């Protein structure tokens, strides 16, 4: 084995393990929900792992990421611990956002993961703003916005793409096309076959399709787009084709999806795809098993710790409105 081959294996193993941690965390969240320990709404990203991990691998630590209510994978890929995520879902004081955000608003600002937003499309203009700021401050940071296929039909999407192109901002717009909005197939409500990529040209930028279940493909495509952004050549739309393993949100059994479609996509589970590739390039089954085991250990410990953590303190309902930490609105 050459050094290059060894490095490739190590790198892919690392990505694989990150994906396994995300998958494990999503499964844990689902289990905790079934046990009544997770309330409110959750939108699991199981199936989308390769997008988060592949994209993250193409970014620098100081780059910016903006995600949606389906954002657990992005938070974890950018360094939020599974424990803090699960604690957030379980309304614990150790939650990533102090249990004030919940599943839909995971944020790890000190790692440039600037938030998960629950109004479809709203964060694309924000990503522009972060990219604009980088440009103004003379850094070479890049901003990435992740969003769903459904978000491509909302006005903010169009406004964001146009401004990004006009100002040549270092931003990448990444659509996770999982073929459905909540319960409606995206093709039923969209005027073009590729909801994101087919809109790129209308805003003077390249639009690229990528296999969103292949972490290596995502990393390659994202590297190109990020490089383009970083070197001042402007924004790119990347449309990653993927599929969610669970329903839209915790209450959705997803019966609207044809069984054979589900089956075909489950066969192309990003973890399976990566595992196959690992074995092809020379990793051993033992390597993979060890990664799985490490991931399982992380997730199990995270779940235990999150369960054991104290609940959020009701008094914190009155902190963090203003920069002074408080909530005073009058004299």
């Amino acid at each position, binding site marked *: 084995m050459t050094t290059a081959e060894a490095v490739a294996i190590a790198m892919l193993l690392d990505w694989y393990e990150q994906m396994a941690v995300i998958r494990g965390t999503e499964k844990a969240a689902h289990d905790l929900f079934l046990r009544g320990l997770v309330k409110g709404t959750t939108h699991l990203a199981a199936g989308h792992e390769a997008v988060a991990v592949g994209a993250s691998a193409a970014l620098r630590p100081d780059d910016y990421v903006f995600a949606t209510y389906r954002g657990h994978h992005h938070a974890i890929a950018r360094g939020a611990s599974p424990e803090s995520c699960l604690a957030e879902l379980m309304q614990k004081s150790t939650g990533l956002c102090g249990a004030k*955000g919940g599943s839909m608003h995971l944020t790890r600002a000190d790692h440039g993961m600037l938030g998960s937003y629950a109004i479809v499309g709203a964060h694309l203009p924000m990503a522009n703003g972060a990219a604009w700021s980088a440009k103004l401050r003379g850094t070479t940071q890049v901003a990435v916005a992740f969003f769903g296929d459904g978000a491509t039909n909302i006005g903010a999407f169009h406004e964001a793409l146009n401004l990004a192109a006009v100002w040549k901002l270092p931003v990448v717009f990444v659509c996770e096309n999982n073929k459905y909005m909540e319960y409606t197939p995206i093709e039923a409500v969209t005027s073009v076959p590729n909801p994101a990529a087919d809109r790129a040209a209308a805003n003077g930028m390249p639009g690229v399709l990528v296999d969103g279940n292949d972490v290596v493909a995502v990393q390659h495509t994202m590297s190109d787009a990020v490089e383009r952004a970083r070197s001042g050549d402007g924004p790119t739309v990347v449309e990653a084709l993927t599929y969610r393993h669970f329903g839209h949100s915790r209450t959705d059994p997803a019966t609207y999806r044809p069984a054979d479609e589900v089956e075909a996509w489950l066969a192309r589970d990003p973890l399976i795809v990566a595992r196959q590739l690992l074995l092809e390039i020379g990793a051993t089954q033992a390597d993979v098993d060890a990664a799985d085991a490490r991931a399982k250990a992380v997730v199990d410990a995270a779940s235990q710790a999150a369960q054991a953590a104290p609940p959020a303190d009701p008094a914190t309902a009155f902190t963090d409105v203003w920069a002074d930490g408080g909530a005073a609105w009058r004299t």
Partner: protein
Amino acid sequence: MADLTTYRDAVSEGLARELRRDPTVVLLGEDIGAAGGVFKTTAGLFEEFGAERVWDTPISEQAIVGAAMGAAMTGMRPVAEIMFSDFFACCWDYLANEIPKARYMTGGQVTVPLVVRTANGGGLGFGAQHSQSVENWALTVPGLKIAAPSTPADVVGLMASAVRSDDPVVFFEHKGLFASKGEAAPPGHVVPLGEARVAREGADVTVVALAATVPLALAAADELAGEGIDIEVVDLRCLIPLDMATVLRSLEKTSRLIVVEENPYQGGWGATVASVVADEGFEMLDAPVRRLAGENVPLPFADALEREVIPTVAKLVEAVRRLASY
């Protein structure tokens, strides 16, 4: 005793009745067709009325409400669903600047008979962007009628009035009430817009409530009755038209008034009610006008935190106690 039904089923029942009655009624919104809506409030309608009456849309709140407006101007009676009331912010231009002004600014040339329905309110752990009570947003805009039913029968009765109204109506369905039960609406049930209901008679304190704060006030009433405090609960049902006559009549009897509202205190609808009371009801008042409202903070995710910032029975009981003993 009449049949019981859920508030949730009352929504689809109310819509079904109007769809059957009037062929110009059409529905549009996200996932409202075969999926029956994310809150199942349009369940069965696609099956009964088909794709020509129940239209699935893209995630395009402006296109949804804008299309409803154009259709309403040209002979239809569209009922648009905005999935969560928070998303009014994504089509606010239509609700604030277009729909309520079209008739006026054309000198009466244009009529916009539409309904915009939406799931409003908190208490379910949906967090800052899916839990707001935004009926006060609608109140800031002259030209919209505003309904917010608290019972299944009122859902049907107010829906009938809303759909038949030649004025635009914003219709708030409270998320926290979907699972609640009440008497089913009798056939042909119509509740006029702008008529408050005295949900419980009482002599000591008037409690003005709306939507989810009505059952909350009734629960407080039971608790307070045990202490000998007899409250009258006024269910406003609508914010516009605002039935101040019923409120002032109640005040005449009780001389004490508190408003209980879920939207934030700052800019809440209760302030408008309280300001009318403090003006026209001044001579009747034996005590300060009080408001129990949402706190002036975003809605937190955790239940324990959310309870801190929205009205609860315990908070209302305590507030009424203090007011009664003033």
